[in-house]
């Protein structure tokens, strides 16, 4: 049992390490801002998520007590990471792109960031 748990813990840690590394590497290596956005979001969700899972397992099985702090951290990460990514994307659209360089937004006609009151006038 313990061995299995240790194996799982190690597995999650390795997963976390790989994704953390890939995320950081991608942030450096990718050229386009929109592409680079993807890298760190993976690192935070999967990378940190792996560590958290490992920590929970370690507490529950190896040390013999239940630890739920990690769930809170996961919750906060799931809340904040998409919003951060969302904002970075918005800033990019706002500052770097214009209506002409962007694909069609669909039904409403404009990307929200460009939907300023001045444009309506």
């Amino acid at each position, binding site marked *: 049992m313990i061995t299995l748990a240790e194996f799982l813990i190690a597995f999650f840690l390795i997963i976390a390490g790989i994704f953390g590394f890939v995320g950081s590497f991608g942030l450096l290596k990718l050229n386009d801002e929109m592409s680079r956005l993807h890298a760190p979001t993976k690192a935070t969700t999967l990378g940190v998520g792996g560590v958290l899972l490992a920590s929970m397992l370690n507490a529950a099985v190896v040390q013999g007590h239940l630890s739920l702090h990690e769930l809170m951290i996961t919750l906060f990460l799931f*809340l904040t990471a*998409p919003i951060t990514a*969302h904002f970075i994307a918005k800033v990019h659209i706002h500052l770097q792109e214009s209506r002409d360089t962007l694909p069609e937004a669909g039904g409403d006609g404009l990307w*929200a960031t460009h939907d300023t*009151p001045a444009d309506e006038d």
Partner: protein
Amino acid sequence: MSLFLIAALPFLGAVFPALLIRAGRNAAASSAGFTTLLAFIGLMLHAPAVLRGEVIQASVDWLPGLGLNANFFLDGLGFLFATLILGIGLLIIIYARFYLTREDPMGQFYSYLLLFQGAMVGIVLSDNILMLLVFWELTSLSSFLLIGYWKHLPEGRQGARMALAVTGSGGLAMIGGMLILGNIAGSYDLTVILQHKEAIQASPLYLPALILILLGAFTKSAQFPFHFWLPHAMAAPTPVSAYLHSATMVKAGLFLMARMWPVLAGTPEWFYIVATTGLVTMVLGAVIALFKDDLKALLAFSTVSHLGLITMLLGFGTKIAAVAAVFHIINHATFKAALFMSAGIVDHEAHTRDIKRLGGLRHLMPITFTIVIIASLSMAGIPPLNGFLSKEMMLEEAYHTTWLGSHWVIPGLAVLAAVFSAAYSFRYIAHVFLGPKRDDYPTTPHDPPAGLWLAPAFLVLLVIFIGLNSNGVAGPLVSAAANAVIGDDLPYYSLKLWHGVTPALYMSAIAVIGGLLFLSQHKRLEAFWNALPRPEAKVIFEALVNGLVRAARAGSDALHNGAISRYAAIMIVFTTGLTYAAFRTGTLAAPTRSVQEAGVLPVIGWICLVVATLAVVMKHRNRLLALVLIGVVGLVVSLSFNYLSAPDLALTQISVEVVTIVLMLLALNFMPKDTPVETPLGKRLRDITISIFAGLGSGGLIYALMTRDFAAAPISEYHLANSYKGGGGTNVVNVILVDFRGFDTFGEIIVLGIAALVIFALTEAILGSRVRARLLNRKPDMPRAGDAHPLMMVVATRVMMPLALMVAAFIFFRGHNLPGGGFIAGLIAAIAVIMQYMASGFAWASERQRFFFHGIIGSGVLIAAATGMGAWFNGLPFLTSAFGYIDWPLLEEFEWATAALFDLGVFLAVVGAVMLALESLARFAWQPGMETEHAMDINPARDDVAEDEKEA
């Protein structure tokens, strides 16, 4: 009545006129009058005892460590002055009710008057010289308000300022003198000081103390060369002049000299300084008074002259002269107050007090004429009025006094002053009331209503009675007061009209004849006087003040030019220099602790810190980037607190960081995003040098501190030992905050609340000005984003809000035993709300705001205060905390400490203060009534419904 109550009554009563003026002017006046009457009656209840020679005392040790005790005593001298202050005060209150017009804010007047009265009573009853000094300064301040009562008149404002500057600076000098005196005597209690005559006069500090105290007395009593403020103070309403310059303010200086007479008088220094000053003032005032055409100016200079007379008598240093001085204080108060009031009547009825435009009023104003003729003749020293008696005593004393070996100087000059004094007194009668009736008065004068003339009429009755039966009317008072001044063995004197054919009688006769002669030659003398070159005191004073202001400004402008970099440079250079000096002159013990190993994590943190700091320096021109880097610095600092076993600090630091960054982001919204290079290279190099030295210095200091044990045992051992035993908490930091140093925390939350209120007030003030329009028309320097309230952010923050509040509650409740507490919880709760402001917009958030932040701050402070006061009911000092343990089923046993209630106060105050500050700053961008784009509702369908309704 207790002396405390007598002294406090005017101060307490000062509230009523200001409030009761809404019920009418009579209500305001009578409230002032009844307060004074009550105090007067209280004083009179002590009269029999005081006149028997007893001294009444009342004392409370207030700050015994400082020698500051609230001691009052009432002896003959204090009784005399208190009688004058309260008695004439009562008359003035009646007079002022009829004198002031509808336009004058009467409630304010009576409040100021009572404040002043209280300060004066305080001076004459104080047994502690520190208390006396406090009251002394209070009279300067309250007389400033009274003299400048007619704020619309530039003369009033200038006169008030001049009076404050002169008497206030004299008061400062006196503080020095009094402290020296107290030091020599070893006590600040007057009754003790008065028994140390030999020690004080033998002390090498006697002369400095004497000069400093006399500076205070002379400025207050308008002695030459400080006499100039008194005539300028005549810009005040006449009741003020009558009160301040007959019975009270200017007599305070005399009172002080009389009070200090037993210990200070009797030395050649005292004689030559005091008597000479008095003599010069007496002559100068009398001469100038004769040539003043303004009735009040005439009286002002005559007051100066009479003050000089009394000062001179006190300066003689003989016992009989002191008796004469005391007697003249009474007499002068009676006739001069009557004269001031009658001058006010003339001004009130004829609408001018220029003597050249008056004359022949005796038929038009017979009652006023009668009053004036009696008071003036008394001032001139005509028997059988009271002025004659004391003037006779003065001349008698002057005749026996030699000055620098000369027998003639003092008698000669005294007679000269008496001649001029008689001349201006006669002039008041002759040029205003006698002579032909004129037809060019500004209005037709007639006698005023009884309310105006009753008060002076009462005073002239006293003038007559004291003159005719001085022993009966004023005798006991004079002997009691004189006893208090000179001690028990009164010399032989008799207050009577006829002393036989003495030199003084000849001198009086010369004065009267000379006065009449001068009056008949007034035109020629005046032409001669006007041709004389004279220094104008006001011009000199203004030049002096302007010079001082320029000098002060030169100094302060060089230091305070408004640039924060300069303030920082001055402070840092000074501190570094001081520390370096301390380092050079002090000794540094050898290090007692070794340097610890640093792990990998701290080193990484340290590198982050250094890199971020360097990056801030390099990139600070890009403000947004600088803000991000500052965030990094804050984060590393918080982490290092946590690493160094200070979780409380770490929690606080991280929440403060968040709030600060949000605050700066808000500010950045209104500022350019880059700063241009403004300072020349030299200046930047200078600043870099300063900061490098300061940084190295503080680094070195900290290193030195941390590698050595403390010289004395730190208090932290005590805190650690007693935190659980005494405070009931295992989190020492929190127990220190809410218990050991609870009073500090209490003060701090008040300061925090005040700071937030100040930010709010400043915002209000700024938004009330033109800035508001500019803000509304502001063109943002960067393109705005289309959706101010992105859906994801709005939803996330709303989901987060209950979570964050839960965290705040958790942190709050565990604070007493584990890291946390009201302060951190408050910051977290504030952040929870700020998130809503940021995501959903100001309008949305403030629509949902139920409680005003002001109220939250106030309730926090009140809860903390109430918790602290709860200890009183258990007979314990303020803020003593109690705690106990409660065992409720289903829950673990938990602790219930009053400190938690106190912490609740801290929590509320912090939430309120942070929110109010942020809200105030946010209002620069948003203002009530401005429609911003509506953030989504909890149920977006409702938005659509609302929109449909709007369109329909």
